[in-house]
Every structure is written in structure tokens, then in C-alpha cells.
């Protein structure tokens, strides 16, 4: 039997609004965005530069408070307007995984340690953290490179390690910001398929901000952002074949 929290959506955003500046310099970055991502679901977030994708992502990551609206993660309300209802940093380490355009691995830690550090800062004992990190590296196919520093890994391997790090604490939601932008087509596709695998097998909600139209078919749903407003694309699989 699954826990009540596991039955909750990975993330829910309601009427989210983000405004920068005031008066005649006011810019509305997000307009009443509402979305929900379920556990085990992978959602693509598309939109041109400056459309508000990154603002939405940082708001959902609890590092850029919205002007208005609510955010709940794993069923727990976390933001009510600009007011955080939880300790944002503690909540991030327990419930949110991040993957970036660049892998952003810590250069002085090995692949294994890069994953392990995410567990240890969440108070997982070192031995257990190591076991879990090795398991994740194994799951993502980079265990043979566990003792290598990031410099010695290829771009694809680095991104796999970054995904392993994002998965370390079994987050409710993984937020990925253009994770294939620095990879070539084949590698990008592999990484995107990994996200789909993670979402479906590990039951995490995955939101991927991307420009890469070649990977549309891996998403369960696609959201388009334009001028800060979210529009749900009707049939992602059709979009994929059309593109």
C-alpha cells in the first residue's frame, strides 16, 4: 500500500503570478500559472527565451518567491504568495531534485562523492549514503566511473551523475533546466529517455524545461509557456510526429 503522500501529486501550482518591478517598469513574468504534475509523470515545458520558463522553474524550486499564488509539493503547501510555509532549503534537500543545462558537478568530488554529498547533507549516514549512491550510479549506468573526477567524465556521463544526484533523496519532483542543451542529439535523447525511465520507475514527477523538439515523444504531457502564461498542448505524441 502506498503512503498518502505518495498518492498526492508531485507538485501543484495554482494561480502563480510573478511580477518584477513596479509602476511603469512592471514586468509580469508569470501570469496566473496553474499546473499539476503527478508522480511517475514526465512533463515538458517549452517556450521561447524570455517567456517565463526559468522564472516558473525557480519559483517551483523555492528559490524565487512568487508574487501571488500557491505551490504544494507532495501534497504539502510550501508557498502561499511570497510567503514560504516551510524552511525552503531544508525542503529542497528532502523533496526536490535538480538537473541543469550543465551538469554542475562539484569538481573536487568524484562521481560517487557528488551523489553521496546530496545524501549526507540530508543527514544520511556515510556508509548508507555510499551504498545508495553506488546503487544510483549503477541504475544510471555510470558505476564504473564512480571514482573518477568530473573532468574525466564525458558530457553524457556527467549528466547521468547529475541525475543520480537529483534522485539521491527520493524527491517528489525533479526540476530539469534544459538538461540536454550541452549534449549532442544522440546523447541528449539518451538523457531524456533516462528522465522518462526515472519518472516511470522511481515514481517521481519530472518537469523538463527544454527547447529540444526532437525529444517531444518522451513526455507524457507538454506545456507551452508564452508571455508568462501556460498552455497545455493537446497531444504530445502528435506534436512529436509533426515536428
Amino acid at each position: 500500500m502506498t503512503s498518502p503522500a505518495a498518492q498526492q501529486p508531485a507538485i501543484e501550482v495554482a494561480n502563480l503570478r510573478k511580477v518584477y518591478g513596479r509602476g511603469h517598469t512592471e514586468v509580469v513574468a508569470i501570469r496566473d500559472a496553474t499546473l499539476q504534475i503527478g508522480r511517475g509523470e514526465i512533463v515538458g515545458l517549452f517556450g521561447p527565451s524570455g517567456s517565463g520558463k526559468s522564472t516558473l522553474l525557480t519559483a517551483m524550486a523555492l528559490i524565487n518567491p512568487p508574487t501571488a499564488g500557491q505551490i504544494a509539493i507532495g501534497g504539502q503547501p510550501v508557498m502561499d504568495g511570497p510567503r514560504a510555509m516551510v524552511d525552503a532549503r531544508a525542503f529542497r534537500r528532502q523533496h526536490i531534485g535538480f538537473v541543469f543545462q550543465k551538469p554542475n558537478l562539484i569538481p573536487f568530488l568524484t562521481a560517487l562523492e557528488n551523489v553521496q554529498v546530496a545524501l549526507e547533507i540530508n543527514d544520511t549516514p556515510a556508509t548508507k549514503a555510499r551504498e545508495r549512491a553506488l546503487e544510483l550510479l549503477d541504475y544510471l549506468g555510470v558505476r564504473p566511473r564512480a571514482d573518477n573526477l568530473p573532468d574525466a567524465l564525458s558530457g553524457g556521463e556527467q549528466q547521468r551523475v547529475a541525475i543520480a544526484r537529483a534522485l539521491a533523496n527520493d524527491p517528489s519532483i525533479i526540476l530539469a533546466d534544459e538538461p540536454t542543451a550541452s549534449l549532442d542529439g544522440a546523447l541528449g535523447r539518451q538523457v531524456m529517455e533516462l528522465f522518462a525511465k526515472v519518472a516511470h520507475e522511481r515514481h517521481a514527477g519530472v518537469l523538463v524545461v527544454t527547447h529540444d523538439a526532437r525529444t517531444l515523444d518522451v513526455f507524457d504531457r507538454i506545456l507551452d509557456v508564452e508571455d508568462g502564461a501556460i498552455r497545455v498542448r493537446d497531444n504530445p505524441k502528435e506534436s512529436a510526429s509533426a515536428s
Partner: protein
Amino acid sequence: MNLAVRDIRHNAGRFAFTTVGIGMLLMLVMGMGGIYRGLIFEATLLVDRVGADLWVVQGSTRGPFAEISRLPANLEDRVLAVPGVARARRFVSHTIQREHLGRPLRMVVQGLAWPDDQGEWVPLVAGRPLRQAHYEMIADQSLGLPLGEKIKLGKDVYEVVGQTRGLVGTGGDGLTFFTASDALAIQFDVPGEAVRLERAARRARTEDMDLGRLQPLLLDRVACLASGLPSLATPQVSAILVTLQPGADEAAVRSVLRTWPDITVYSTQEQKDLLLAGMVDKARRQLGLFRTLLIIISTIVIALIIYTLTLDKIRDIALLKLIGARNTVIGGLILQQALLMGAVGYALAWIMGLYVFPHFPRRVLIDPADLTSLALIVVVISTLASLIGIWKALRVEPNTVLAV
């Protein structure tokens, strides 16, 4: 997982160079403290070793280690007559600089009250004490005068018969021991021409007086050796060293001596205090100032390096914040690096000091208490140095990592 150690491992070269630099600075701080300790040790060594209970010096002066002190040599007989005094020795001390084998040779000349004091108390590493009233000397090894070496001082030649090690004066010049009369001869040696001129002047002055005209024989007397003229001063010494009889009341002896207006009397401890409060105290303050400056420089160097290391990994720190690392983890990373830098620098300073300090021209005495206090100072300055890096790290926004 210790992030500080892993970061250092990754930047091992830079860390090594920096800590060697810090180590050298700390070695200088350590050395300054050691020089001060050595200064005190050397300055008080003679006072400790000479074995006097009381020092009788010129009235209203602080004694030969603080200023010029002149006493008639026969004062020792007066002192010896005081009840409770077992021994009174004349003490002569002055510094000379001569040329020897083409190089300047500075030495502190100490006069021993021959035959009562032949220098048995002097800690010899080679040779023997003085055995004759003239023309023998004991020299410290720092002067570079081997046993058997003969050196001309004034009009006489002296042979080195004994050697000491590390026995130097407050100025760092090696000590030499002569009989008091030889020490005086060296001190008051004047060239023959000056003697002749002085004798002629004396004669001329006497001729101008009625007494000289009425007593012509006096003209021959005034032109003789100065030491043969009772009207001129008797030989002057620097101090009279008093040894008390066993069980004698020091206060009683002092109370008698205090009634003599031409002298001042000090205990050995007072003489040491005067010595340390004068010249050594100034050196202490100067060395202390240098130490303070070096400590400030070390703090700035550590702070700059830690700040640079922090800037280098600012993106990693932002990432750690983004994935939820507590401030204590981030602050701890920087603080540990600063402490490690300080600790390794301190260890290097100590190791380098072991090899370098023996080559210093002055004695460097490393005191365990000084080492402990320096270790505490290093902890404090490393902590202070880390603050600017911690401040920078805590201010970085987690979304910095999202910027491409």
C-alpha cells in the same frame, strides 16, 4: 564526507605553496619570540652564573648592565669588612671592538678578581680556567678564537686558554674573561703618544704652579705612570660582587651598605630586573611589534587565499545551497580550510625553524609556552581569516548556479 579536505586535495599545489608561505611567516613569528627568549637567556646568563648575592655599584646608578658604573677597586676591601660578607670581588665589564685577522671582532670584556676568582664558575666547553695573573683569556666560541690563539689587545698579547659556548652579552657579542687588572689595562689602554702628551701636560701644569716651582722634584713625579700618582684616581671597576656568609642576613648586610652614600646595592634579582627592564625591554617591544605585524600579515594572507579559494568555488557553493546544504556545511567547509592552512603552516614553521634557527646569529630559544600561545593565535587568525570567505559564501544566491 569532508568537503574541505577534498577541495584541498583537488587544489593541492596551490594549497602547498600557500601553506609554505604561511609557514615561513609563522616561522618568523616563532623566531622573533625565540630571539626574545634567547636575549633574556643570554642577558641573564652571566648574572646567574657569576654567583653573587649582592651587586654593589656606583651610587645612584643602575649598575654596569644599564649604564656606566665606576667604583674604586679598593671598595672591595671596604665591603669585605661588612659583617656577614664572605667574599667581595671586583667586576669589570665593557665592550671593545678590534680588528683580528682582517675582520672586526667585538667582544664583551669581563674582569675576574684574580686570584680569588679564576673563572671556575665559567661554563667551559674546552680548555681550562685562568691560571696566571696576566695574559690569559677565556673566549666564547662565537668569537671564532680557538684554544691557543693569541690576540693582541692594547699593548699586550693574550692567549685563549678556555672556551665557552653561547655565552654572549646583551648585544650578542661573545664574552671574554680576563683578570680584572688585564680587563682594566685593555679598557684604559691609550697610545704611547697620548701618554707622553698627558705627562707633558701634567708637567707643564705643575710648572705653572708655585708648588712646582718650589719643589722641582715634583716635576719628575707628575711625569711618571698615572697609576703611581696617589692624587689621581685609583683603578676603576664596574661593580663589586658580594657573596654572603652561609646563614647571613642579607637585609642586615644591605642596610649597612645602604648607609654608604657613594654606592648603591642591588640583589641579583634586582640586577636582572634592571637588565631586563632596560635594553632587553626595548628589544622585547620591538620584536613584539614585528611579531604583531607578521601575525596581521599572516591573517591577511590567509584571508585572501581563503577568499580566493571561496570565489573559485562560488558556483559549487551555490549548488550546495540549491540542493539544500545548511549554512553550517558551507561555513564549515571554509573554516576547516582556513584552520587546516593555519595548522599545516604552523607545523611547517616549526619544522623549518628546527633547521633554520640554529643558523641565526643570535640564540633562538623556542619556549613550549610560546609555541602553545602561537598555536592558539594561529587558530584565532585562521578563524578570523575565514570570516570574509564565509561572508561571501553565505551571501551567494542559490540560483547563481542556474546562470549558464
